[in-house]
């Protein structure tokens, strides 16, 4: 089966990033495919490369980056939600005249249409709410 995931919660504000990560791994382990993981609302904070949690806590953004690269997942961060909340790549940093960027490796900024398309093209769209 083809799955897509939507994640609305930020690390530390919500358990959604933990649960979705375990679920995504279980999807792969069960032999299904992941069409897309879509990060929306405060979920865009999963995609920062500037987090440095204590060594005895999970590094949630880094863990996503590895998962996305290892399994070649299409990981889309809603660009409108991300711009509002300060998660940007170099291109947007240039466009908005910002001195730096913070989008972690593996994530792509794109439009909300990618969430709807994921709903249309997947057998299951599973939401992990804040």
């Amino acid at each position, binding site marked *: *089966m083809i799955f897509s995931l939507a994640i609305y919660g930020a690390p530390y504000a919500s358990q959604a990033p933990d649960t979705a990560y375990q679920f995504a791994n279980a999807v792969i382990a069960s032999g299904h495919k992941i069409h897309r993981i879509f990060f929306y609302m405060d979920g865009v904070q999963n995609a920062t490369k500037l987090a440095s949690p204590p060594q005895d806590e999970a590094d949630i953004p880094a863990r996503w980056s590895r998962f996305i690269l290892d399994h070649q997942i299409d990981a889309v961060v809603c660009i409108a939600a991300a711009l509002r909340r300060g998660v940007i790549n170099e291109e947007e940093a240039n466009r908005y005249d910002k001195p730096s960027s913070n989008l972690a490796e593996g994530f792509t900024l794109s439009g909300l249409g990618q969430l709807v398309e994921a709903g249309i093209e997947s057998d299951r769209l599973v939401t992990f709410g804040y």
Partner: protein
Amino acid sequence: MILHTINKSPQHSAISACLRIIGKGSAILLIEDGVYAAISPSPFHNQLCDLKIYALEADIKARGLSDKVLPGIETVDYQGFVALTAQYDSVQSWF
């Protein structure tokens, strides 16, 4: 038939909202703080017999509830979660 996930404790409105609209043959999977409903007789009181209710094992264990889960609630691991989402026609998340 829908799999409804609930991630909030019974103190929040998510559970009662879900119970107001859930249809026969659909099921509930308690995840995250939703698993506190698995030890509390009240929220499902009248519906336990009609509804299939699951709870995510990792969240039950994390919260110290393993010995307290009410009879009739089945625990599943993350792969069981995936299997349930495949088994039902769609998944709706209450949060």
